[in-house]
């Protein structure tokens, strides 16, 4: 694992207007070159130069992201290896897409603290800092492992275990055919291997496509902020995103469209949708906004209903509450800095008390409670806050995709009448890639499986 090419997101995820992906290792320049479309070839440019262009899909050359790429050749870089830094637009989507494409090349996601470790091993960092480097590796990997572990608990983990077991049984069957050629176990046909591999591949594809976790991984939890005009939806979004994006005024109906923002709360990526205030309106432009808000509401995984507790419940409020009551909802009672005019009873009848959050966006009060409530819904109690959660997700997707490629290779080989011991190489690769997601060591499980599944001996 020494001296291969590694990559990681170098900036805090979901924050800031620019995000940077750092790639280090002997092939970093060539690999980035293969997914980069620009005027100059990166392999030919001078060191320490910046290049404008697009990250592209290496197969279709489709433009994916607009980026700036900085090339720093060894030894004049942080790790003293060839380093490429890719600056993308901020937020989650852009940087994730870039990582996605990178990890499907011959690039490995960096281990916790690995850039620093390389910097040290290559002599960039002073000897006196050896201990600090060790501490960094230790603490980062503990956090990474705990969050990675939490992430893959539950359905995703069970599903992957099930698919791995199918592969393991198939592998054991292949191995018995190889190691006990004269034994009276059913000899394994290509058709059988093809069937098993196709079955597993379909499940993985489905996992990538439809699993709830998969959805979270791909784009974040779609969270719609809804409410009547001027109850403070945009202010809430801004407070969560910590930068002014939506136009905030006190004229009702200012937000004429759906505004999106990507944030992470306790490591959970959220795609926030600030909707135009939903009310009956005659204004044509505002009407379009309202329609879009309604459709955004339908797509949302989570609805944050904002009410102004300084006013009594309005008919529009009641209509909205009725519309969303069967959804995952958090009710925000805003403007707690003003006197309460709102009757709570009706709200408490419709929503659980831990889903009702009192806050004052203007005074920045109650944001923590809201974040905790959001985390609580998806992780029943929330997970430790840490920026690596998201990165691990990128890694999982890359591994799932790699497993699909391995299975495709295996299936292709069965069609070309390649001998089973060679097909096994790809089946095993898929099994190991899935194992990496749930952190299962390779170990002796194959050999255990062979002897528990088959009766062998002299």
């Amino acid at each position, binding site marked *: 694992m020494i001296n291969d090419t590694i990559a990681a997101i170098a900036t805090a995820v979901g924050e800031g207007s620019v995000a940077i992906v750092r790639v280090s290792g002997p092939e970093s320049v060539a690999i980035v070159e293969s997914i980069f479309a620009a005027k100059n070839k990166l392999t030919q440019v001078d060191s320490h130069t910046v290049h404008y262009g697009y990250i592209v899909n290496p197969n279709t050359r489709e433009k994916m992201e607009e980026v700036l790429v900085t090339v720093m050749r060894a030894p004049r870089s942080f790790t003293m290896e060839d380093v490429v830094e890719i600056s993308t637009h901020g937020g989650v989507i852009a940087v994730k897409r870039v990582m996605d494409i990178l990890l499907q090349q011959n690039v490995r996601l960096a281990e916790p603290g690995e850039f620093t470790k390389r910097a*040290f091993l290559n002599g960039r960092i002073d000897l006196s800092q050896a201990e600090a480097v060790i501490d960094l590796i230790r603490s980062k990997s503990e956090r990474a492992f705990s969050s990675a572990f939490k992430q893959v608990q539950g359905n995703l983990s069970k599903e992957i275990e099930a698919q791995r077991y199918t592969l393991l049984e198939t592998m054991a069957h292949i191995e018995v055919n190889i190691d006990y*050629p004269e034994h009276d176990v059913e000899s394994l046909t290509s058709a059988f291997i093809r069937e098993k591999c196709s079955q597993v591949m379909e499940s993985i594809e489905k996992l990538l496509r439809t699993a709830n976790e998969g959805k979270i991984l791909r784009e974040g939890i779609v969270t719609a902020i809804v409410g009547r005009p001027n109850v403070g939806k945009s202010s809430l979004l801004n407070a969560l995103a910590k930068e002014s994006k939506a136009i905030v005024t006190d004229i009702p109906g200012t937000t004429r469209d759906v505004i999106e923002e990507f944030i992470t709360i306790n490591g959970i990526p959220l795609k926030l949708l600030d909707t135009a205030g939903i009310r009956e309106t005659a204004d044509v432009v505002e009407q379009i906004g309202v329609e879009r808000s309604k459709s955004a509401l339908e797509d949302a995984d989570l609805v944050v209903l904002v009410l102004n507790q300084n006013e009594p419940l309005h008919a529009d409020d009641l209509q909205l509450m009725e519309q969303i009551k069967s959804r995952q909802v958090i009710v925000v009672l805003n403007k707690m800095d003003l006197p309460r005019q709102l009757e709570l009873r009706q709200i408490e009848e419709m929503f659980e008390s831990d889903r009702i959050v009192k806050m004052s966006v203007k005074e920045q009060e109650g944001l923590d409670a809201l974040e905790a409530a959001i985390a609580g819904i998806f992780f029943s109690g929330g997970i430790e806050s840490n920026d690596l959660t998201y990165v691990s997700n990128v890694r999982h997707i890359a591994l799932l995709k790699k497993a699909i490629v391995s299975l495709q290779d295996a299936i292709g080989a069965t069609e070309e009448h390649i001998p089973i011991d060679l097909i096994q190489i790809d089946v095993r690769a898929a099994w190991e890639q899935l194992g990496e997601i749930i952190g299962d060591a390779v170990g002796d499980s194959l050999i255990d499986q062979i002897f528990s599944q088959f009766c062998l*001996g002299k």
Partner: protein
Amino acid sequence: MGYLAGEYDVIVIGAGHAGVEAALASARMGCETLLLTINLDMVAFMPCNPSIGGPAKGHVVREIDALGGEMGRNIDKTFIQMRMLNTGKGPAVHALRAQADKFLYQHEMKKTIEETAHLTLRQGMVEELIVEDGKCVGAVTKTGAQYRAKAVVLTTGTYLRGKIIMGELMYESGPNNQQPSVRLSESLRELGLQLVRFKTGTPPRVHKDTIDFSKTEIQPGDENPKFFSFETISSSNEQLPCWLTYTSSATHQVINDNLHRAPMFSGAIEGTGPRYCPSIEDKIVRFSDKPKHQIFLEPEGKNTSEYYVQGLSTSMPEDVQLQILRSIPGLEKVDMMRTGYAIEYDAVVPTQLYPSLETKLVPGLFTAGQINGTSGYEEAAGQGIMAGINAARKVQGKEAVVLDRSQGYIGVLIDDLVTKGTSEPYRLLTSRAEYRLLLRHDNADLRLTPIGHEIGLITEERYVKFMHKKEMVELEIERLRTTKIRPDEQVQAMLASVGSAPLTNGVDILTLLRRPEVTYAHIEPISPSSHELSQEMKEQVEIQIKYSGYIEKQLLQVERLQKMEKKKIPDDIDYTDIHGIATEAKQKLNKIRPISIGQASRISGVTPADISILLVYLEHYNRVTASRG
């Protein structure tokens, strides 16, 4: 009492399959070598199945031969059947398996040993090792003979505190009713070595004339047999068939009725037996839904009527064994000549060894074979030759030779033993090798003969032949790469005959040969080589070309492995000092004392983060050491 009986460079204790390879290697490397055995009539004896080879095991025999060992040559001289297994699968898992004339095998091996220069073969039961200043410098026999040496190789097989079990009967014994070695086991314990108790077993032997072969299926050998040794060109050995039959429902009934008398289930056996070699009673209990089990009847030699009943390993009482045998089609009237038995024995916990097979506790003491927790003649011989080589090199002041996991099954075997240990008698399987496609039996010579030559076990004459083969293969591949053929009538006809798509343009032959249905034999008439190529050379050319895609993938992985193996860890590192490594990993590292980062990364319980920290620590350590000059 006691007298100085002789001084040697290397003493090998035990003349089984590990011991003979160790002794021959050491003597051939120029070390004065003594080979001691409890019974001179038991040299290279096969106490269990009369066969050598098969998947992974046959690969090991080719590797031993490629390094200059004896097992391959000896079985080529004494086989009574030769079969290539797995021919319908990829070239990496083709495996040669021989039935041996077990008596001839022994005699030939003994003769070779007796005729080898620098090698002394002597009968004697070793009871104690001589250890001075913590180093092993010799051995003392029961008769008081003291032999001194600079290195000692222990290859005790199943003799250490051996105990035979048949039903209710239990007695101290080595294999096949030989004297067990009891005192030596105590001596090892006193030295501080940790021992474990393992178990294995063997089936009954029956008389040929009492078998009704008409009720069995014949299993003949190959018509054109291949051989294990690079040096064997042809053979006039006559081949004998094996015979296949099955257990019946009556067999299962007999066993189920007598389970209370089975030591496996009554608790009489304390040793851990191998899962891959279960007794028949174990198979019937664990796989109760299987209606019948295969039984192979194998001749034990040309000049004997004894047949080995493969598949019927058992420790049932003698009377039950006879009932079991007679419930099997073809064996209704069989005469049982030897009773099957289970045997328990002491083995050394192999994580106490360096990859050179020298014990960490007692410098100069090496162990190899079944004493290290393995099972199988081939596994024993593979360790034997390495232990012999490394004992000799230690005496000669040279660095140990360690094969890594990409160089051979022997490397996989030893690395597994010394890095992970084993909780049952260890058997090699091809699935234990990560780089199976590279560890083919057809390229064992290409992988290991240069090493065998360098350490002095391969003669110049053989090396010249080897280099010729290597060059011819390379030349031919280059010729095929650079020779274009046009889509003429002959080519298109050949392609049509094998059901391959016709050519539209000219193409180099190498590309054409990559098509699954096209073989070298198809190409040869169209574009023959100007050199005379042997069958082995053509085979090598074809394999290297046909599977190059997969081979290159594995070579890339190997490159990564070797980088890790090259990062050596100094022997004097104290892991408890390293801040940041998890406690469990520290304990494991201190115990195993890996020689490289590669080995460290394979220890269970050592995480990638621990390895990162270890790398940082080593860098620190090396810089500090360097600055001190």
